[in-house]
């Protein structure tokens, strides 16, 4: 069979969407046969062993030169689902197995949300006295009700989600989710974001905001599933998997940017968050408090066994994510400019770290604290872990004694450590 010359492939290397890339590859015998091979490689249970075998390696090599290699998809494109299925079929071959953070299949959102923020600022910047009292979420509902398309699609999901089926079956969640997805896909952001991310000063407004997605049908469960179970359910559906990857890509807190958002792009984060609504991983405000803004999928980390750390890390990306929180607050306050970063240390200080790119699996959230000697003793011992003291090795090389927490530095009997 004629193998593709690098020259032919380069003409292909302009990034195309995965549906188009698949068509181009299908039209090329060498590429289509390798792609078929790769799909068998990733289909097996023991994917890594398969990927290590020569034939799979060869298939990967060829496909790396084909348009399938860095194809992407667009939110709301025609055949979006097919595009995503193709993306994941090749992506599973390119990654070393299930990662904590997966790369988003969607093209990066370059356009900023300025016009939407400007609209939000017009609303929030109105006569400040009126604005102080006004309920922004109620105004958002008004704006929607006065727009035929928004009104129709909002009423459609509300009536479906609100329809009681029987005393045991509260509603048809699948239909409700579908209607919610249609609303967020087909109604312009300036209406949907205002309903979802309006800023609130009082509890009634915050409760209206929480009710936006009709949570008793689309979100609440009799018993919350474990978040890792919910994640694996989500990752079994290409659409949910893609939107979750997109959320992780665009909302993962990064400490190199003032806004805590990758590329300081609030729109990308808000868009990814809204993209999860109507799927298994539907997130929502956890309460109607105006003090702190906490969102979460409907799951908990109870029953995580030895995977509690991974579960809590997954949940933290929703519940304690400065990028997501800043993005929502920024939209609510109608400003695209980053807010002064919120200076509060909730956990013991960690070292500031540069963020890896989208699929780094290890990001530390809090700003690290490097201070000169005097102050750290106080901060550590008083408010961090009150009952702890600096540890000193009484026998070891000259370190200050400290009571009571002593970790003896006995020369270890077990292990000789070569330095």
């Amino acid at each position, binding site marked *: 069979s004629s193998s593709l010359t690098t020259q032919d492939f380069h003409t292909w290397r302009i990034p195309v969407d995965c549906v188009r890339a698949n068509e181009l590859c299908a039209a090329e015998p060498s590429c289509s046969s390798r792609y078929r091979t790769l799909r068998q490689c990733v289909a097996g249970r023991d994917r890594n062993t398969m990927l290590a075998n020569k034939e799979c390696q060869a298939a990967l090599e060829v496909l790396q030169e084909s348009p399938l290699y860095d194809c992407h998809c667009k939110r709301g494109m025609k055949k979006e689902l097919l595009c995503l299925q193709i993306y994941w079929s090749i992506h599973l071959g390119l990654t070393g197995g299930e990662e904590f953070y997966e790369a988003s299949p969607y093209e990066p959102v370059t356009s900023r949300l300025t016009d939407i923020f400007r609209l939000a600022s017009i609303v929030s910047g109105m006569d400040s006295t009126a604005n102080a009292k006004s*309920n922004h979420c*109620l105004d958002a*509902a*008004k704006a929607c*009700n*006065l727009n*035929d398309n928004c*009104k*129709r699609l*909002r*009423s459609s999901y*509300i*009536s479906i*989600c*609100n329809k009681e089926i029987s005393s045991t079956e509260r509603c048809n969640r699948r239909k409700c989710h579908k209607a919610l997805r249609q609303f967020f896909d087909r109604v312009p952001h300036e209406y949907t974001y205002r309903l979802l991310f309006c800023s609130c000063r009082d509890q009634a407004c915050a*409760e*209206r905001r929480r*009710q936006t997605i*009709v949570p008793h049908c689309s979100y609440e469960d009799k018993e919350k599933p474990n978040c890792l179970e919910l994640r694996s359910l989500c990752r079994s559906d290409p659409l949910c998997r893609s939107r979750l990857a997109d959320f992780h890509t665009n909302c993962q807190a990064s400490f190199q940017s003032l806004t805590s958002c990758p590329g300081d792009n609030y729109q990308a984060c808000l868009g990814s968050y809204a993209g999860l609504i109507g799927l298994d991983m539907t997130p929502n405000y956890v309460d109607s408090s105006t003090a702190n803004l906490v969102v979460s999928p409907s799951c908990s980390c109870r029953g995580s066994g030895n995977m509690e750390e991974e579960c809590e890390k997954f949940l933290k990306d929703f519940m304690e994510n400065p990028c997501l929180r800043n993005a929502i607050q920024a939209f609510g306050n109608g400003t695209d400019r980053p807010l002064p970063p919120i200076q509060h240390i909730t956990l013991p200080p960690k070292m500031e770290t540069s963020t890896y790119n989208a699929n780094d699996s290890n990001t530390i959230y809090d700003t690290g604290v490097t201070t000169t000697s005097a102050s750290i003793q106080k901060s550590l011992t008083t408010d961090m872990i009150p009952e702890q003291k600096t540890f000193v090795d009484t026998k070891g090389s000259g370190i200050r004694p400290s009571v009571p927490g002593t970790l003896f530095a006995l020369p270890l009997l077990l292990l000789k450590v070569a330095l």
Partner: protein
Amino acid sequence: AKARHKPCSLKELEVTVSELGLGYKSDETVLFRYCSGTCDSAVRNYDLSLKNVRSMRKIKKEKVRARPCCRPLSYDDDVSFLDAGNRYYTVNEVSAKECGCV
């Protein structure tokens, strides 16, 4: 023409759901469209005949209408809203979409 004699047409008004007076308590604002105006230009032979036949007492104790009405020919989509008790409601056929003389 004086407001009273304008031809039948579609008008609109922004009102809160509570102001609709259906019993729902909600500050959400909705667009209320209604039909207003006269149907003088839509009178038919039927109307003239009915008026005469009735005046000749050939129709008694019956509720008949011998003039066209300016009424909605179709209605807007349902409207849904969150009420003051944080309960969602959906109401149909509140707002007119198209008016005509019938």
